[in-house]
């Protein structure tokens, strides 16, 4: 049955491939696939034509099940289309539309095939209309399966993007900066209770070693909540830094955070300062430097613009 049924679908598609192509393309353009400008018409044409070709081949070889090996090429192609759309920020609907908008042109082609059979008259009409329901079902099932495949790839691609961004953020947001010879600062921003903390800590300790730093200022102005877990991470970092021979100063504890820490019962056994500037001044004193006011030097008038 599948052989026979799909054979007829295959014939219908083969006979009307050009109509299917132009109707399909028109539908996608109408639905605004190009409006965003993320994909060019020429590219869409190439994708559509190539996909129809492999779909026709699969059908001609008797497939109606998207998981059948004959549709391997078709799925590969969808994987590519879906992946590139996922990367380019297409919505799920825009991505799925590639396959789903093929339904109507396919049904139209089937109808045309049946009408053609009808014009031959006699038994052909009855046979054709009896098969119509089955063809419709086969095509629906096939396109739905291919559509789902598209969505799966799309979601996987998005997940990959999110995971990559997560990794980038955890690197980006933990820079250790040198303020002076032997003085480092670690401005923390965001939530501290993920795997990020591990990265932060290792980064700081490595930089302390690399630069033989004596003092590390950990600034938490950008940390929205300090709970017991955050406090514990801070304490561990301070203890580890101490083992590497560096003293820590914690700065940027805002008043509301300070009050909350007192209620929690958390004690940071470490020098703390309200601002990074205050902490820097303390750090300079400890390494035997001071910031002094220099006499104002008038810049010579010449050479100034």
């Amino acid at each position, binding site marked *: 049955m599948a052989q026979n049924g799909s054979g007829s679908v295959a014939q219908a598609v083969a006979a009307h491939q050009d109509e299917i192509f132009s109707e399909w393309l028109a539908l996608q353009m109408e639905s605004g696939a190009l409006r965003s400008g993320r994909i060019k018409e020429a590219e869409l044409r190439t994708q559509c034509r190539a996909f129809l070709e492999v779909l026709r081949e699969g059908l001609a070889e008797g497939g109606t099940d998207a998981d059948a090996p004959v549709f391997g090429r078709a799925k590969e192609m969808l994987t590519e289309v879906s992946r590139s759309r996922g990367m380019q920020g297409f919505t799920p609907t825009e991505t799925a539309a590639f396959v789903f908008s093929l339904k109507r042109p396919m049904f139209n082609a089937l109808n045309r095939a049946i009408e053609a059979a009808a014009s031959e008259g006699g038994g052909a009409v009855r046979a054709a209309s009896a098969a119509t329901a089955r063809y419709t079902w086969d095509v629906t099932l096939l396109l739905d399966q291919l559509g789902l495949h598209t969505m799966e790839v799309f979601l996987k691609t998005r997940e990959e993007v999110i995971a990559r961004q997560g990794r980038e953020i955890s690197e980006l947001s933990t820079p250790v900066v040198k303020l002076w010879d032997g003085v480092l600062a670690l401005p923390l921003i965001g*939530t501290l*209770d*993920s795997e990020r903390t591990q990265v932060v800590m290792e980064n700081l300790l490595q930089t302390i070693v690399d630069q033989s730093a004596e003092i590390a200022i950990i600034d938490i102005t950008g940390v*929205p*909540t*300090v*709970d*017991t*877990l955050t*406090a*514990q991470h801070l304490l561990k970092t301070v203890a580890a830094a101490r083992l590497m021979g560096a003293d820590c100063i914690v700065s940027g504890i805002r*008043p*509301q*955070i300070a*009050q*909350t820490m007192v*209620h*929690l*019962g*958390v004690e940071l056994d470490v020098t703390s300062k309200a601002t990074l500037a205050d902490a820097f001044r303390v750090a300079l004193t400890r390494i035997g430097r001071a910031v002094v006011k220099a006499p104002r030097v008038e810049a010579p008038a010449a050479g100034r613009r």
Partner: protein
Amino acid sequence: MEAAAVFEIRSSDDVVRVRQEVRARAVAAGFGLVDQTKIVTAASELARNTLDHGGGGAVRVESVSQGGRRGVRLTFEDQGPGIPDVEQALKDGFTTGRGLGLGLGGSKRLSNEFAIDSAPGRGTRVTIARWNSR
């Protein structure tokens, strides 16, 4: 914002989510920065206890008002192992894990109302509320 909403606590991302939801509630109730920080921090502690000790659960977040004062009430619930000795668990420094053992007692001190209902094998329910002090 609905008067009450329930959020699952199954991962540490969910803990972050709970903090954000509670912060939004506190702001909506007109809380100042200190009150906001207190209830958000208490929520963070209890959410992580639900996750780490209770094996996951959920929190019900409610906007409440009483005698013209507005507040936020949170009910954390899990079907975990429960707490055999609640009084001991509330003591500062007591932990069965590797924490500081300050979360439970701390969240009590950070709240205006605190109730805990727990029994071995049944799970744990902790309810806290904080009122706008302005």
